[in-house]
């Protein structure tokens, strides 16, 4: 566990001098962590675009603070589900209920594209994440803290255009984190990154999730990523949850371990069989 706490993203600058502060903050977060996440209950959720029934009855309960990964073939409705959870679209039928009525800034989404404002400096981009609290007195301090959290404290005055893909995505993460959301939904946030950056981002995601204790819903194409990060992996097929796999392995998980590989293999097999079925039709 100590290892996970000390982890720094690969290209972050060393923050030894601030180590004690970081640890103290971490401990405080863990203490409030249980209260931070929101539980989520989905009942009979359906979504159709015209004749195209994408989601055909999703029933799901996610306990507060759980890390859930959603996998499934392209076009199976993962993004659609995420957008419904985030309130970006309205369901055709069914309901989504949070453990408590969330405020606007309690539910945040992160997309595959960083969606940074190119004409705003990194820090202002993070401030956008504060929503209505943008004009509060401590807005800038909070944005700075979020930037440090993702290891980009020294980039606050840069234009997004000069950042690397991974750094942009970390700014987007800081923006999503700055309002201290209680549910954070990720739609393939690492899909466009190279393998190494991806791994360091995965570790960053895991760290902030453990620090802040939000409920995480991660849509991904990468089954290895899903089993490495999540408490639970959902496989969506034909608009329903076809499998619900609990990943009961201690953290930090060692990439490439036999247990992870076995779980990954099982889920992949399921996905591939599904695709053979349809191609046979």
């Amino acid at each position, binding site marked *: 566990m100590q290892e996970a706490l000390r982890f720094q993203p690969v290209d972050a600058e060393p923050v030894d001098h601030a180590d004690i502060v970081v640890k103290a903050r971490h401990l405080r977060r863990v203490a409030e962590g249980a209260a931070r996440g929101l539980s989520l209950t989905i009942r009979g959720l359906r979504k159709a675009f015209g004749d195209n029934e994408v989601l055909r009855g999703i029933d799901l309960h996610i306990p507060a603070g759980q890390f859930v990964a959603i996998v499934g073939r392209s076009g199976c409705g993962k993004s659609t589900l995420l957008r419904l959870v*985030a309130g970006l679209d309205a369901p055709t039928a069914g309901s989504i209920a949070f453990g408590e009525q969330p405020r*606007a800034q309690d539910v945040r989404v992160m997309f595959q*594209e960083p*969606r940074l*404002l190119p*004409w*705003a400096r990194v820090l202002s981009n993070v401030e*956008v994440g504060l929503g209505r609290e943008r004009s509060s007195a401590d807005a800038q301090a909070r944005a700075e803290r979020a930037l440090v959290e993702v290891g980009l404290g020294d980039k606050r005055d840069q*234009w997004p255009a000069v950042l690397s893909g991974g750094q942009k995505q970390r700014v987007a993460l800081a923006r999503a984190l700055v309002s201290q959301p209680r549910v954070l939904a990720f739609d393939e946030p690492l899909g466009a990154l190279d393998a190494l950056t991806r791994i360091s981002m995965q570790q960053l995601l895991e760290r902030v999730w453990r620090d802040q204790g939000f409920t995480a819903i991660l849509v991904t194409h990468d089954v290895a990523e899903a089993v490495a990060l999540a408490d639970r992996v959902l496989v969506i097929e034909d608009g329903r949850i076809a499998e619900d796999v609990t990943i009961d392995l201690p953290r930090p998980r060692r990439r490439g371990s036999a247990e992870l590989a076995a779980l990954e293999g099982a889920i992949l097999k399921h996905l591939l069989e599904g695709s053979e079925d349809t191609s046979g039709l």
Partner: protein
Amino acid sequence: MSLIDSLPRVGAPKLPKVDGLIPWIVPLAIVLVWQLACVTGFVPSRVLPAPTDVALAGWKLLLSGELVRNIWVSFWRASIGFVIGGGIGFAFGLANGLSQLSAKLTDTTLQMVRNIPHLALIPLVILWFGIDESAKLFLVALGVFFPIYLNTLHGIRTVDPQLIEMGRIYGMTDGELFRRVIFPGALPSIFVGLRFALGIMWLTLIVAETIAASSGLGYMAMQAREFMLIDVVVLSILIYALLGKLADSASRALERLTLSWHPAFQKK
């Protein structure tokens, strides 16, 4: 020298002092050759007066106050016409970019009017306004309107919808969304319109002033032609060129200032 010399390059050595002078080498050389051609009698002064003669004519007109007055009149017409036409074009661009209803209501009409070359309206405009100030202002405003309108509209319509969605997710109000996302996103395109409009502004003014005016640079040139003062004619043309360059430089400076975030404007 390669063809893609104008593209940003890594580690290209910069000589700032010399760099600023390079664009002036060609114009200077032209003036020099021109002077030589006139002095040697290769070009008769009735066809093209020497640069020194033009400068002398300019000096005389400057002393009599005529030059400053005419430049001022033209500058004033250009500015007022630009502000009126550009302002209305910008307003319509915003309205039609932001509101479906407004676009449905007016866009087709405007697109139809756009296809009439505005200079073709000169006879009509003279009938309406005579050779009054309003005739010139009307023509300039009309000419400037369309590039500004079209580019503002285009800029707003092509703002990345993902950014707009992002803004909404993060709880921006309509006003904030406009200020922080839509307007900055449309700005590069608006500047394209601005630069086009400045070109059209001078063109329209020259034509309008040569045809129907009793003051201004174009009028000065036409008067000079009547009295065969070819040096003054050339002088007015040069001043037009200078004013055009000035307007362009101003808009570029503004562009650099407001688009400093844009990769194309970032200083290395």
